[in-house]
């Protein structure tokens, strides 16, 4: 299993930094976990988080390599640096886990989420909702005379901001996919 092959002399830019600086501050990290897409693998990962009392802020999973049957699980989690290090080491122990990347320490990363918003209303509010959607580059993927469904892609903060703006304008339902993330650059 690749994940247990700790890089020698790991630095703070490695997912397996064995000499971290422990502080009590809660940090948010985005982890990309490559796993064999076999039955139960998601249960192993989620069971690890619930069993050991770690947080899951967001979780996405899908097969990314159909021939190699590999899935990519993207997890956004929070904890002290010590807890984050534990989470990575514990994930690395799971047999079908190939690799764990901490995108938050491994350099800049792109994070995107897709969300759908159902906004109902009429008159000024409806016009304002449509105008804001335009500013956010959200698409209306369904419309009736009293409602829109907007589709928006972006960083989680952008999704949050849009939701805040829609709330007084008749937001009734939101569906979010959770974060998908990749490191920037050629590596």
């Amino acid at each position, binding site marked *: 299993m690749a994940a247990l092959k700790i890089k020698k002399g790991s630095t703070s830019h490695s997912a397996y930094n064995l000499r971290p600086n*422990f502080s009590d501050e809660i940090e948010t990290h985005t982890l990309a976990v490559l796993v064999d897409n076999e039955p139960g693998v998601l249960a192993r990962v989620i069971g690890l988080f619930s*069993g050991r009392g770690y947080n899951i802020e967001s979780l996405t999973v899908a097969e990314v390599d159909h021939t190699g049957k590999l899935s990519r699980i993207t997890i956004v989690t929070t904890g002290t640096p010590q807890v984050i290090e534990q989470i990575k080491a514990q994930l690395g122990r799971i*047999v079908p886990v190939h690799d764990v990347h901490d995108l938050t320490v491994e350099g800049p990363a792109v994070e995107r989420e897709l969300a759908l918003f159902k906004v109902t209303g009429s008159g000024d509010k409806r016009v304002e909702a449509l105008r804001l959607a335009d500013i956010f580059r959200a698409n209306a993927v369904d419309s009736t005379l009293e409602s829109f469904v907007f589709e928006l892609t972006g960083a989680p903060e952008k999704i949050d901001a849009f939701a805040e703006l829609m709330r007084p304008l008749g937001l009734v339902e939101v569906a979010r996919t959770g974060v998908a993330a990749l490191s920037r650059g050629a590596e």
Partner: protein
Amino acid sequence: MTRQMTGAKMVVQALKDQGVDTVFGYPGGAVLPIYDEIFQQNDIRHILVRHEQGAVHAAEGYARSTGKVGVALVTSGPGATNAVTGLTDALLDSIPLVVLTGQVPTFMIGSDAFQEADTVGITRPCTKHNWLAKETDTLSETLHQAFHVARSGRPGPVLIDIPKDVQFASGTYTAPEKSDTSIYEPETKGDITAINELVEALEKAERPVFYTGGGVINSGPKASKLLRELVDATGIPITSTLMGLGAYPASGENWLGMLGMHGLYEANMAMHDCDLMINIGARFDDRITGLISAFSPGSTKVHIDIDPSSINKVIKADIPIVGDVESVLTDILKVWKARGRAVNREAIAKWQEQISDWRKVECLKYTQEGKTIKPQYALARLEALTKEHDRYITTEVGQHQMWAAQYLGFEDPNRWMTSGGLGTMGYGTPASIGVQVAHPDSLVINVAGEASWLMNMQEMGTAVQFRLPVKQFILNNERLGMVRQWQELLHGERYSHSWSEALPDFVKLAEAFGAKGIICSDPDDLDEAIMEMINYDGPVIFDCLVEKHENCFPMIPSGKPHNEMLLGEASTQGAIEAGGAVLV
């Protein structure tokens, strides 16, 4: 070579190809095809236990005393759920096991079929890995992978759930050497830069101590040999956890005794005051650290462990080394010798003097007087009368377990089998059976408390059936002694349900099983009774009636630092505060 055979036959073939000679098991509907194959061969011995928990603990005893993978075979549903405690025990103590469970046929899974349980779901958190074998064609490869995962890296229990139709169907058998084990390849070689750093620290240290654990035993006998070489060449004192006893001999010059909650005064003081702590295959368990913020405040900490998740989990390591003990010790010795075998002899001599002063406290002192046997005395006599034997010890859980660790001396690894991490009462009897199966001519003794012993006493039937001369040495205080001790110290002496009432007559019980029973209550008769037990050629239940209210000391109360140890009755008044009482 590939061959066609049924799934059931594959199971037996794979066990043979993995060098398995013994399986502990209990049959049922969902494993009948496998039992049918076992019936038709003579290479693998099947030991019929009396309860599936017993099968798993017996496999643990077998594994720990041989260094091999232990194997258990149980049926679906209740067979599998009965195995859960044993699996959890093996997971916490890093014992390599392969447990095979039967399952309802694939086409009935999910229908609440008779004796159906979601075994893979139930055992996911208590195994290192598990599989549901859905196809006969891949079953043999899964079996070989299971053995590989169980014994590689940090060892642990794995489970394969095999539906009955998969056992009946035919498929292609894959030999071990053709199986893909690249699915799991843990790093075993330590980072040489860190090893150099460690050697430099070791050369300069004024108050160094080795803190060793179960990882040394897991690594194999060669690791113990290298450890002895390093300790003796450097003259650095060494302590061990409960799980690592025997890696360094108890008669060794630098031996401090066990450390931790019920460890020796000198061991805990050395840990607290050292300037260099070299942890080899131990995991900073809470029985060891006590109050974390006050744990060995002045030391540089080296941590050698094969599992990256053990490092920095509890205590921050200044010099972390991920690797197998044997490999890392080989490199340490190489580097240290090449650099000129230096240590700070002068400072270490002073440190040894300090340690001698701590030894003078004689923290294990007790007085045997009157007509009641002190449990410590019983174990001291057991030690004296059995230490020259080819001896293996198992234990149950409680005060007797701690006294056994304190008063028995272990000269070699793999001689001491105890449930450390989970603390499973009922472990010792089946474990002693597993050990005796592996070492038929050795003296195997289970040091037990009467309450623990009752938890898996049905396994006496197994001992009698298979002529396994295990000695059940019960320190009978008619109390759940360890619980009673905590109630005395933490709960105002309110002894809520911590006594053993309506105990059986152990001599009659032994006879009912077809074993020998011995009872002893007089210290003057003890030696003779122990000799009778040793010399009896068959299983024995020894009912040793001991002092009922003896407490186990030394004791570091939960939530206290190492240097605030309770040494005896006089020091216990108000020693444990409310903050410590929430801890276990």
